């Protein structure tokens, strides 16, 4: 039997613990050695919830509600809140519905938040690849669902923005421009898709927030963010925006050459939580990916949230009961050597 996840040794310490201790020792000992801040951070804690849902026709709202209650998201907290759901809509291809968050997951999330007393629930997206957001909205099937449910959809690629200082400071961007609409909501919820990614290894709830950056400021496919570094930008956006909740659609995910050209992968799960790095780390373990090998997650660890399995209280299904290796492609550098062993 190999090492358990996160390379824990027989003393219960992870490689990161050892590095952290060694780094601290060097600092104390010399006072001169430069050590990256991330090795000196205090451990954080988070909870995630994993639910088995094998089909989009099942009771998604009920499942999400159960998970949210398990995570302490209750009526008292949600009552009267304005909730913005950010799906993962990138582009459409008739043979690849697994590119985008399934519309019925959005419907389930809307219903769950309304049942918890939310004042309003809206959906907003600024697709990275299409200049015609309405086309993605229509062709993904989301327009049918939201029209029927009378839920407002906002195209945030062309929306007016407001600036915030870059709280992440990982890229050279001094400020980030978010949709002005975000000033009118109380909660931002990332409703992502479980996919491998050819530039970042995996795209989950944190990477999904690329889509909140308006195309009119950042271009297509968010060129500015690519130029200053995808991993840097993911961290900057999450550190500055501070999203409130994440739901990942892993009922059917995408493996291989994601986020567009990969193959569908039946996993049959919904993963959720308040802390996005923890949710994404849990998703990675389900996908057979080591979260410490996904650069932006490793850098987020114990800053934006924990990614160690010891620091994440797992509710609902165990990871082992739903784990299924996603295909990784050897010729894609971001997917090399990231398999969980």
């Amino acid at each position, binding site marked *: 039997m190999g090492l358990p996840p996160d390379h824990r040794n027989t003393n219960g310490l992870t490689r990161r613990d050892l590095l952290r201790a060694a780094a601290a020792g060097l600092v104390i000992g010399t006072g001169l050695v430069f050590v990256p801040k991330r090795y000196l951070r205090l451990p954080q804690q988070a909870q995630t919830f994993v639910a088995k849902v094998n089909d989009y026709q099942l009771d998604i709202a009920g499942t999400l509600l159960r998970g949210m209650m398990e995570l302490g998201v209750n009526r008292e907290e949600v009552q009267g809140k304005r909730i913005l759901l950010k799906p993962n809509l990138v*582009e459409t291809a008739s043979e690849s519905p697994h590119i985008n968050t399934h519309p019925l997951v959005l419907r389930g999330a809307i219903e769950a938040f309304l049942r918890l007393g939310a004042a309003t629930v809206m959906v907003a997206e600024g697709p990275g690849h*299409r200049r*015609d957001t309405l*086309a993605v909205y229509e062709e993904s099937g989301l327009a049918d669902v939201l029209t029927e449910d009378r839920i*407002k959809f906002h195209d945030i690629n062309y929306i007016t923005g407001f600036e915030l200082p870059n709280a992440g400071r990982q890229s050279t961007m001094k400020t980030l421009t978010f949709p002005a609409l975000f000033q009118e909501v109380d909660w931002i919820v990332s409703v992502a898709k479980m996919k491998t990614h*050819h530039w970042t290894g995996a795209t989950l709830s944190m990477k999904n927030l690329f889509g909140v950056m308006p195309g009119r400021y950042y271009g297509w496919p968010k060129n500015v963010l690519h130029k200053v570094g995808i991993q840097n930008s993911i961290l900057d956006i999450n550190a500055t925006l501070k999203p409130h909740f994440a739901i990942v659609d892993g009922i059917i995910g995408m493996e291989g050459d994601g986020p567009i*050209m990969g193959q569908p992968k039946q996993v049959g799960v919904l993963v959720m939580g308040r802390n996005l790095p923890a949710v994404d780390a849990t998703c990675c373990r389900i996908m057979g990916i080591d979260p410490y090998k996904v650069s932006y997650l490793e850098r987020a660890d114990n800053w934006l949230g924990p990614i160690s399995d010891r620091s994440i209280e797992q509710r609902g299904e165990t990871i082992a009961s739903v784990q299924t290796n996603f295909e990784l492609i050897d010729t894609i550098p971001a997917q090399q050597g990231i398999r969980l062993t």
Partner: protein
Amino acid sequence: MVLDRQLPHGGWNYGNTLVFGKELHPMPESTGAGLAGLAGLVGRDVVLPSLSYLQDKVTRLRTPISLGWSLLGLAAWDLSPPNAEALAERCLANQGRYGEYETSALSLLILGALAADKNNHVPFLSISAHHDRMSSE
């Protein structure tokens, strides 16, 4: 530069052709813009797969940016669909579903409809045109 970004099987997207050996998907709005920009500058044979892609796609488009650019791109090569007016009217009617279109998207749709209409008469514009004439008299 624009030609360099044309997909091997036709069409344009946001600017990438192949990533890790796989050809990416074309998009109607980008293809329409590419074709409109190249009209008169390159031979038809160079853009034939893109024209075929857009001709196949245009009748299924329901949204103003995609349809507007597609009509403009095809009209630049004298390939407007015979039902262009009906397509534009259906797209306008979809505002009941999507909400009112942004001015820029609406303008694009109208430009596309005008470009597709060889007789320069688009019925759904005639009411406002008549109103404008009356106002100026």
